[in-house]
Every structure is written in structure tokens, then in C-alpha cells.
């Protein structure tokens, strides 16, 4: 292992790691928000919106992320949408993630027994309060694991952003490998960075799950 190489490329790798985390966090949190709104619209909105959302989910889930990214980044300018690589990366991440998140939320909504919602209506709770106080806290129980899972999957999907020259981790690593003709070491370090993100995400997910299932433990 040539440590001197990493001293030289360390800053670039760390910068790449930062860009990766930026795209991943903003993209997937944006995906969660859009996905949640889609799931809410699907549940409470008019029927034709449900059909539009259904089509959106099918198209996005049915095509590879890389193609969506290409279309947005290289096709965008044709309709006047000029994006920097990072912007394109984040937006395509939101577009790609939101249908999966929407489906996770949909299954979460369905997991709440109808009777509990009737009981809430019977004491006069407003619908917004029912969503906030009755549905959301409980749907965290069934959806935390799939949400964590998908966040983890997305950590590694960030590597695809390198194809539109987002200066993220893989892009920096490839640059380093090409310039120094070393391959094993840079990619081992790259893996370490992804592994770190996955471990932290998994740990946070486990803590959240512990917190939201507190009430299910019998004393």
C-alpha cells in the first residue's frame, strides 16, 4: 500500500465523499418528501391523480436509473433545462427514489387498522390530526425497515452519478486510478467509504425502529 498516494489524493477523495453524501442525502430526503406527497395524493386526492401517480410509478420503476439520469442531463437542454452535473444528480435521485418511497408509504397507510381511524373520527379529530397523530407514528413501525433498506441501496446508486461527471467518490477514485495506475488500493478505500455510509444508515435505522416500537413491548 502506497500511503503517499493517499496523502496526495486524500483531499480529492474526501471531496468526492462529501459530494456523494450531499447528493445521497439531499436526493433521498427529497425522494422521501416527494414520495410521501405522492402517497398522500394517491390516498386522499381525486381519482385521476391516482392514475397519473400509478403511471409515474410504473415508468420510473421500470427504467434504469442511469437512463433517467442521461435523459435529464443530456436531454434537459433540449427543453431549456440546463443543469450542472450535481443538480442533475440530485434531481434525478429524487425522481428515481420517490416512486419507491411512495410505495413504502402506501403500504404503511394500509397497515393502520381502519377501526382506529373510525375511532378518531368518532371523537371528532380533524383529518390532518389523524394523519399526524394516529397514522404517521404507527406507520413508522412497518416502514422503518424498508425505508432504511432503500436508503442503503441509494448510497451505492450514487456511483452512477459519475457518468455525468458529478465529482463524487467513484469519479475521484477513477481519476486517481487512471493517473497513478493503481487500482486495488483506491477501490478498496472507495468500498470502505460506502461501507461506512451503509453501517451508519443501518445503525440509525435500528435506533429509529427501537424508538417507534416502544409501545409494542409488553411490560
Amino acid at each position, binding site marked *: 500500500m502506497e500511503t503517499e498516494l493517499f496523502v496526495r489524493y486524500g483531499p480529492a477523495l474526501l471531496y468526492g465523499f462529501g459530494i456523494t453524501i450531499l447528493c445521497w442525502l439531499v436526493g433521498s430526503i427529497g425522494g422521501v418528501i416527494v414520495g410521501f406527497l405522492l402517497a398522500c395524493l394517491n390516498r386522499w386526492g381525486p381519482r385521476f391523480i391516482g392514475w397519473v401517480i400509478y403511471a409515474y410509478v410504473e415508468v420510473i420503476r421500470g427504467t434504469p436509473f442511469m437512463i433517467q439520469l442521461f435523459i435529464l442531463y443530456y436531454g434537459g437542454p433540449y427543453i431549456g433545462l440546463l443543469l450542472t452535473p450535481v443538480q442533475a444528480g440530485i434531481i434525478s435521485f429524487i425522481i428515481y427514489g420517490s416512486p419507491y418511497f411512495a410505495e413504502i408509504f402506501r403500504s404503511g397507510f394500509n397497515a393502520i387498522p381502519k377501526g382506529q381511524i373510525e375511532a378518531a373520527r368518532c371523537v371528532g379529530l380533524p383529518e390532518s390530526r389523524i394523519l399526524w397523530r394516529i397514522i404517521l407514528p*404507527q406507520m413508522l413501525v412497518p416502514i422503518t425497515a424498508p425505508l432504511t433498506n432503500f436508503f442503503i441501496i441509494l448510497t451505492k446508486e450514487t456511483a452512477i452519478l459519475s457518468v455525468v461527471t458529478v465529482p463524487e467518490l467513484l469519479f475521484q477514485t477513477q481519476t486517481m486510478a487512471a493517473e497513478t495506475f493503481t487500482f486495488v488500493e483506491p477501490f478498496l478505500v472507495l468500498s470502505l467509504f460506502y461501507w461506512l455510509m451503509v453501517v451508519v444508515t443501518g445503525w440509525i435505522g435500528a435506533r429509529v425502529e427501537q424508538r417507534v416500537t416502544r409501545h409494542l413491548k409488553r411490560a
Partner: protein
Amino acid sequence: MSNEPMTTKADDAIITVRNLSKYFDDFEALRDITLDVKRSEVLCLIGPSGSGKSTLLRCLNFLEQYDGGEVHLDGELIGWKDISHNPRKPLSSEALRKQRQHIGMVFQHFHLWPHMSALDNVAEALMSVRKLTKKEAREKAMTALTKVHLEDKAQNYPANLSGGQQQRVAIARAIAMEPRVMLFDEPTSALDPELVGEVLSVMKDLAAEGMTMVVVTHEMGFAAHVADRVAFLDSGRLVTCVPPQEMFGREPDDARVRSFLQTYRERNVV
């Protein structure tokens, strides 16, 4: 209070049901039900399963949209904004919410919110609907829990309560809102036999305090001893509505009532 229990004075009634009908697609769940519930009265709805008892109860607070006829609470039409047009126009969810605050409901399967303590289950609507502060709401919730003898279980989650205790929390949740009437949908049917008594005893206390109650039940003992009147439904129709002495005391005239009650007589329930 009227000395003539057999006559129905209109102004005496808190709930009036007129020519109520309800369809589930092509299935006629309720046909032409006309019924009054008087103030402070306990009315039990009995009948075979599928006879429409629960559907009738759920029409009273518009959990089921009835298709024909009218339900009034204190003179106010429940659920519909306009019945002169076809199709009928339902009330806004805001207006419906206001009506439902006056109608307490207790379900067969309790439907407590499992992620909240017993106390918070009761306090929730006091805060978000009655707009009490957290402290006031919790005090009031505690009073309601004391009424159902669960003050020492206030901090428990529903998972750590027995079925009977959960149902009593559900009753506390409803009475804390000080409703004008209470609806019970088979409140003891999901309970182990030894837990039925504690729930019925809380209901008896409520009745003694003058709460107007409509109770769908298979507990003929409760109907015989606590109800002021007992209504028998069969195939979506109201067969008869009489004081319990008449329902249980002598051989019923109607063959359907006779055969229904026979199954209980065989088990020495009434």
C-alpha cells in the same frame, strides 16, 4: 320523565330515526327503520348476525352513509347537508366532525391507539378538538379513567392492558368528550367471559347517571336488566321495540323473535 313509557312524545326524543334505509350495493341492509331514542334511555338492539343492528348503529353517527330516510340528533339532521336533491349531498368533513363530537362510540374491538398511553388515548381529543391545554386535558382524562376504575393504569400502553381494561379505556375516551348519546357496538363480544362483567358494570353506572345509550349486544342479561327498551331486528327490518319485560317476560308473538330467544333460553341466559 314521562309516566307513560309506551307513548313517544316527540320532544322527549333525543335521536329520531325516520324511514331509514341502507344498501350495500344491491344488498338491502336496512329497510324503512323508524325509531326514537328518548333522553336518558338505554335502548338495546338485538337480533341474529347480519340483521343490521351494527349497520343501524353506525348510521346514527354516519360511519355508514344511509341512503334513505333521516336521522336527527336533537333536531339536527345527521350526515347529510341536503336530502331534497338526488343524489344527496353529504356535510363537509368539518361539519360532520362537529356533529360526531356529541356522539360517543365504543367498538367491539376497542380501537385504541396502540402507540399512546391509556391517558393519552383519552386526552387526545380533549386537546385537539376541545382545545384544552395538555395539563387540563390530562386532568380531565384522569377523571374519565377514574370513572371506569383505571386511574392506576393511566400510563400503560394498550398492549399492557387486558381486553376488559382496553374497552374501559375506550369508554373513558368517549365519555371524556361529554357526548349527548353513547353508541356501543357489541362492546363485550371480543372479551373473555370473565372480563365481560367489568365492562357491563361500567355501562350500568353510565346508564344510572342518565346517559342516553344505544347498545348493540348479545348480552341478553344486560338487555333484560338495564335496557329501558329492546329493539329486535331481523333481515334489516325492525321487528319490534318493547320494554324488556315484554321482550323476555312472556312468549313473544313473532316467530323470529321466539326462535332467536329460544337459543338463549336453552342456555338459561334469560
